Each structure stands twice: as C-alpha cells, then as structure tokens.
C-alpha cells in the first residue's frame, strides 16, 4: 500500500494514456466531435486523480490491484447472431431492447419497434450533437460528471464508446421496460468497456430501465466500468434494475447516481451474481421534499468472488422516505462488503429511513464485512438500520429433510427463501422471473 501500489497505478495511468492515444488515432474525423472533447477533458482529469486504495475509508475492503494491473484494449466488436442473445432476452416485442457488444451499440440486434414516439432513446454522442439536448447534456456532463473526484468516473468518461441517452417527457408513462443487454466476449487483450447512461425523466413521467451484464464466454476477462446518471424531475417515477451475471474473471465497477426532485420516486435494484471483483457505488441525492427512494440488492458470491456495495442516500429536505434492503449469500472463499450510508441533514425533518443488510455466510473461508451507517442531524425523524450475518437455520434444514427433501434441495430452498424478501420487490413480473431464474442457476452452478 505503499509506494509500490502508487507506482503500480502510475503505470496503469500510463497504459491508459497509451490506450487513449491509440483509440484517438482510430477515430477518423470524430476527434473534433463534442463527445470526444469530453473524452479528452476526462483523460486530462484522470491524470490528476488518484485511483482509490485500501487506505481510503470507502475502499477499505476492496482492492483495485487485480483490476488495474491488466493492460486493457479496445477491440472491434465481433458479429453476433440473434440466436446468441436468446438466453438473455426479457419479455417479447413489447420490450425495447438495446444490445451492446463489448461496449459498442449493435443496431442490428437492438429492437426499437416498441419505442413510442414520445420516448427519446439515442446514443449520447448523437444527443450531444442534437440542438434539442445539447445544452442539457453539456451542463450535466460538465457540472456533474467532470466535477466528480472519482478516477473511475473520469476513466469511464475518457473511454466511453457511445453512451446512451434516454429522455421521457413530462406526463408520459412507459409501462414496459427498456432492456439494455451488455454482452461481452473473449478478446485478445482484456476489453475495457465504459457503458454510460444518462436518463432524464420529465415531470410526472414513469419509466423502467433494466441493464443485463452477461458474457458469451465463461473465461472472458474484461472490465465493465459503468456510469449511470438519473435525473428525476418532480413527481417522476424511475425503476432501475441491474442484473449482473458477468464472466467469473471479469470486473465491474458500477457508479450510479440519481438526483430526485420534489415528490420523485427512485428505485434501484442490483443483482450481483458474476464477476471476480464487483463494486457498486449507488447514490441518491434527494433534492427536494416528498421523495421516496428504494435501494435493493441481492448478491451471491462463490469461489473467489468479491462483491462490494457502497450506497449513499442523502436526505437534505424534509418529508422524504427511503427504504434500503441488501441481502446476500457467500460461500467458498467469496467476500462480500456492504457499506450503506444514510445522511439526514438538519433540515430533513420528518425523514423516514430504513436500512437493513443481512447475509448468510456458508463456509469457513467466506467473509462478509458490513457497515450500515446512519448520520442524523435532524431531531424529528424515524430512522432505523441493522445488519445480520448468519448461517442457514439447521432446524429448518431438518424440517425439510424430514419431508423427503435431500440436503441440497433443502439448502437451496432455504437460500432462495432468504433472498425472496428482496426479489419480491421487483415490480415487473418478467424481470422478477428472469432474476429468480438467474439466482436459481447460480445456486445450481
């Protein structure tokens, strides 16, 4: 942690610099595009920022060493057949389906037939060149993204391939989800992908985005470095689901931030099943009163997986509620981390905040570190938080076995039962069924 670590990250920056130059050289005229101007600014910024180390309180349990020593590349996306998508599809024609292969938007495999005219779904790059959205995106990308002090956010911005812009106008409701399938394949060099999404939900609108992260090759090594930004105008309702089933040697960092304006309602659900090192940074900034925020998470770690969820809910205004529930199961030598902070500022009277993290640790060498934190500066609030770490209840195992369940069946049913409390919060049937199927498949693997 020492000089050696620092040096290693200096080398990482140098490598990223070389990668940036080679990407830039292949741009063919796009280098004057305003989107690329952001990339360049982010690259400059990255040189000034430090990658977090375990000396940083928020990264105490998660080291980026393994992830940052790789020399990443940007390789052309392979051609895929529609049939290869089948295992990952959710629902039918009614779902807007966007497919990204190794970070690049694949138009042929995407399906926008269900997109209503009022809904804007386009590459962020193109939206930035569109007079209608240019000012909005420039403002957000300058004042929010480039203002971030996170090296990982800057890295995402610097290497963003296309990005996604979603805008739903005021009073419109999209009942079926937008489903983004992020597919990875095995590449010569580990692939760096930088998915970027900016969602603006107009006043009293409603929309659901589902992000699936999957791999076609079980042994693929790559790094998904994600940035999502949600802005909820007053009274808007947004559901965001991340169904993460990356290859087991892949890495994922997910930086998701929502700004929730008056009476807005934001729900985030992360399901983490895959990945060697996975880190979520999920923050909700409650920008006015009357808002409601849900943060849900389910994680299942096996082998040597490391899954870390860092959440932050910022209650700055009165009469806001938040509900947070993260549950997970760890076995083999897997590690889990939960660090959930709820900040209730002095003016945030009548806040109602609930936070719970529960884990099952099923083997001697598996580990869970949990740190639920409530910081309350207001005096008229209802807040509670808690954390439990335990094993399967053996009297329940015995009960099921006495009914003819074999040991594996009994334990699998109890593990699933443990997670049901969170999974049942998924509000769309087809999404919940998909999530449950993924969880079951993980139990059986």
């Amino acid at each position, binding site marked *: 942690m020492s000089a050696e670590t620092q040096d290693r990250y200096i080398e990482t920056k140098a490598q990223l610099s070389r990668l940036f130059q080679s990407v830039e050289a292949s741009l063919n005229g796009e280098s004057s595009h305003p989107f690329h101007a952001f990339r360049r600014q982010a690259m400059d910024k990255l040189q000034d920022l430090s990658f977090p180390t375990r000396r940083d309180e928020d990264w105490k349990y998660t080291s980026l060493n393994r992830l940052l020593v790789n020399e990443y590349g940007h390789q052309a996306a392979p051609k895929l057949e529609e049939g290869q998508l089948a295992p990952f599809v959710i629902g039918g024609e009614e779902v807007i389906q966007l497919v990204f292969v190794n970070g690049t938007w694949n138009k042929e495999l995407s399906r926008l037939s269900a997109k209503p005219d009022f809904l804007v779904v386009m590459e962020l790059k193109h939206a930035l060149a569109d007079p209608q959205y240019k000012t909005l995106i420039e403002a957000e990308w300058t004042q929010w993204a480039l203002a971030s002090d996170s090296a990982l956010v800057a890295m995402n911005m610097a290497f963003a391939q296309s990005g996604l812009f979603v805008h739903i106008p005021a009073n419109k409701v999209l009942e079926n989800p937008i489903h983004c399938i992020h597919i990875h394949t095995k590449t010569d060099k580990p692939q760096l992908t930088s998915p970027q999404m900016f969602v603006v939900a107009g006043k009293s609108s409603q929309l659901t985005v589902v992000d699936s992260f999957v791999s076609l090759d079980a042994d693929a090594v790559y790094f998904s470095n994600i940035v999502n930004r949600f802005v909820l105008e007053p009274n808007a309702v947004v559901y965001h689901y991340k169904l993460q089933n990356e290859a087991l040697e892949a890495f994922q960092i997910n930086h998701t931030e929502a700004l929730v304006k008056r009476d807005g309602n934001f729900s985030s659900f992360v399901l983490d099943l895959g990945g060697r090192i996975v880190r979520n940074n999920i923050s909700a900034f409650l920008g006015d009163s009357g808002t409601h925020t849900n943060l849900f998470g389910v994680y299942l770690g096996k082998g040597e997986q490391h899954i870390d969820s860092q959440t932050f809910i910022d209650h700055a205004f009165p009469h806001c509620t938040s509900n947070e529930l993260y549950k997970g199961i760890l076995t083999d030598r897997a590690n889990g981390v939960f660090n959930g902070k709820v900040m209730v500022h002095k003016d945030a009277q009548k806040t109602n905040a609930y936070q719970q993290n529960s884990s099952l640790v099923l083997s001697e060498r598996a580990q869970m570190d949990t740190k639920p934190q409530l910081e309350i500066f207001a005096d008229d609030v209802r807040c509670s938080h808690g954390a439990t770490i335990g094993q399967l209840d053996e009297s329940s195992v*015995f009960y099921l076995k*006495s009914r003819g369940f074999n040991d594996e069946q009994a334990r699998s049913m109890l593990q699933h*039962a443990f997670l049901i409390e969170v999974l049942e919060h998924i509000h769309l049937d087809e999404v919940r069924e998909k999530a449950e199927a993924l969880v079951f498949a993980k139990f059986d693997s």
Partner: protein
Amino acid sequence: MLSIQNLHANIDDKQILKGINLEIKAGEVHAIMGPNGSGKSTLANVLAGREEYEVTEGSVTFMGKDLLDMEVDERSLAGLFLAFQYPVEIPGVSMSNFLKTIVNNRRTAKGLEELKAPEMLKLLREKIDLVDMDHGMLKRFLNEGFSGGEKKRNEMLQMALMEPKLAILDETDSGLDIDALRIVADAVNKLRSKDRSFLIVTHYQRLLNYIVPDFIHVLYNGRIVKSGTKDLAFELEERGYDWVKEEFGAASV
C-alpha cells in the same frame, strides 16, 4: 413394521433413553404417554433422525431395514413421518412450492413422473379440505404467522400428502382447542388402514378419546415401564403420573 430394541440415546452427554423395546406391526396404533421429561419427544426425534441425539446402544429396524443407518430424507421417503411438536416457520418458502416438492419427490423416488399442474392443484385442494384449511394457505409462507392449531393441521396435511407407512405424532394435541383437536383426530382416523401404523406421543389422555389406540405404553425415565390397552389411558388420567413415579422411580435409580 417397526422394531425398537434396547434403544439408548443421549443429548449433550445426558442419557435420555435407557433401553426402549417396542414392536409396532402394520395397521396398529400405539400411544406413548408419560410425564414431562420422560423421553417421549426424544424417542420421536431419534426415530426421525435428528442429529443432536446420539444413539449409544440398541437398534431400530423399519420395514426390514436398519433405520439408524438411514439419512433423514431417506427415512421420510421410506415411509416414516414425524409430525413436529413445534413445526418451524420458514418465511420465503411458499406452502404451494413446499407441498408440490413433497409430492414430486415421492413420485420421483417411486419412478413416477412429476404431477402436472392441474392434477397437483386438485390433489393439494383435496388434502387441504381434509384438514379444514383455506385454499388460500397455498399462497402463504410455510407456517409463517400460522396459529398453533393451523400449524398442527398443516402437519396433518403433510402427513395426508405423504401417505406414510408409519406416522409419529409428537404431542400434536398439546395446546389445541377442541375443534382443532377433532380435525387432527379426524385426519388420523381417515388415514388409518391395515397397512399404516401410528405412534402417538402424548401427554394428555384427551386425544385418545378421539383416536382409539390398540396399545398404550407408559414411558418413564427413559424406559417403557407399563404397556396395556386403551384402559390404561383412563387409569393414567384418573390417577395421574404420580403412581408411576412412585412405583418405578425408585427402581430406575
């Protein structure tokens, strides 16, 4: 069907069963009575295979096989059923999924195909009616928020679905009001057949007004100290357990 010979069992190094001998033939209903702490529940749990109990001596043969050598689930699939004194609550496991798995596991073990959804539903509803419960119970989680009576009826429902060869009822009657007690007794009586045996562990004689056993055994201090027909139950009810303690207490020291 069941043959218990000289069974000794410990929990936490404390000897609870001190030489039980019992023969149950097909179609017979046996009741085991005795004061608290005599070892009744221990016997039921040792037969079902609960791991906390250590068998130190003796043997148990069930359907010609060494029962003590079988896993808990093997015992169940071989036709041994235990109705728990305190059924566990398992939030997150739906009744419907639980009961379907019970049925299909047994079918698979017998080499039959799993039951199709409509037939399954028909079967479940029929058995739910048998214990006078609401069909809506299928949507509830296993025993979660069930009243004491509902939990015991749920045990009887599982027994009806499992069609065991030997059903052990561990104080299923304790704490029940008379309506629930009648439902439990009805379920047992409906399932009585020449091939099916019951071992009813109870503290109170009252249940035996509704389920008439063929034999009654008095368990005291880890041994069966007296066996007889149903009249023995009335004697116990009238005289209490004190005379048992007086008569057999000294001898067992």
